[in-house]
């Protein structure tokens, strides 16, 4: 029962879906950040799998850069979150509605 690229892609989709559900469910911003991490990791798996089955390093390169971006994103995100928390004392999503249309 040999593992093919599709297996990995299905897995990556599954994880992506879980991340998506997390993003939509969560009202607490920190938890929302967790879900975004899951999204990114799901994509990384896909990338790595394709790189392996296609025999092409580009996939890994992308995964590598995604990790770099994720790291910086978390840094800045949490920084902002802290400022928001200091200002309002809560990190609840429903409260941030100033960018109303």
């Amino acid at each position, binding site marked *: *029962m*040999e*593992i093919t690229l*599709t297996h990995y892609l*299905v*897995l990556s*989709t*599954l*994880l*992506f*879906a*879980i*991340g*998506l*559900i*997390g993003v*939509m*469910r969560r*009202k*607490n911003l*920190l*938890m929302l950040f*967790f*879900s975004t*991490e*899951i999204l990114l*990791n799901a994509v*990384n*798996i896909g990338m*790595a799998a394709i*790189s*392996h089955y*296609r*025999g*092409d*390093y*580009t996939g*890994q390169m992308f*995964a*590598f*850069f995604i*990790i*770099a*971006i*994720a*790291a*910086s994103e*978390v*840094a*800045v995100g*949490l*920084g*902002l*979150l*802290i*400022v928001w928390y*200091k*200002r309002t*004392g809560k990190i*609840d999503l429903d409260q941030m509605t100033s960018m109303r249309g």
Partner: protein
Amino acid sequence: MFEAIAFYLFATLITVMFTITVMTSQALYALTAMAAGMIFISAFFFILGADFLGAIQIIVYTGAVMAIYAFGMMFFDTTRNVIEKRSNPRFVIVLGAFAAVLVVFIVLAPIVTTNLEAHYPIDLAVGNTQAIGMVLFTKYLVPFELAAIMLLVAMIAGIVLAGKKMDKSLTLMAEEEIALMHASSVSETLEEGAH
């Protein structure tokens, strides 16, 4: 044979871990489950022959990112369980599941592309890390430098944003002190806003 077992084992583990992160109402459980998930993902990387990537995953992701999150959680006093008012939760899950099904359906369709040849073919002779090093520092040098600058900027931003009034540590303060602090900070922001 082993590879299949490993794949399914790790796949189920990751799915369970991430479902916990998403579904739990306890912040701590979420954090730990995600860290575990990350580790298993790095395991995948090793299965797929991307050793350097697996290492990076462990060091950067699980190490640094999870650490910052841990710190963040401590900072945002999420010790108590996170109460969230959610509107029609079932809709969200159904939507997510339906999206997943659709993508799976697309992925399952036979990939017909034949003329896709690899830009940087993997030759197993050379070690993965060395090969990645070669590619990273020749073709992707510019993005690599940009990533470096980006990380630097992120670092500075993090410091600047979270720098002020770090002296008061929540964990050491008593309950009422925290409440008082919140009250003062709220009033403080109000005057700021006022004038």
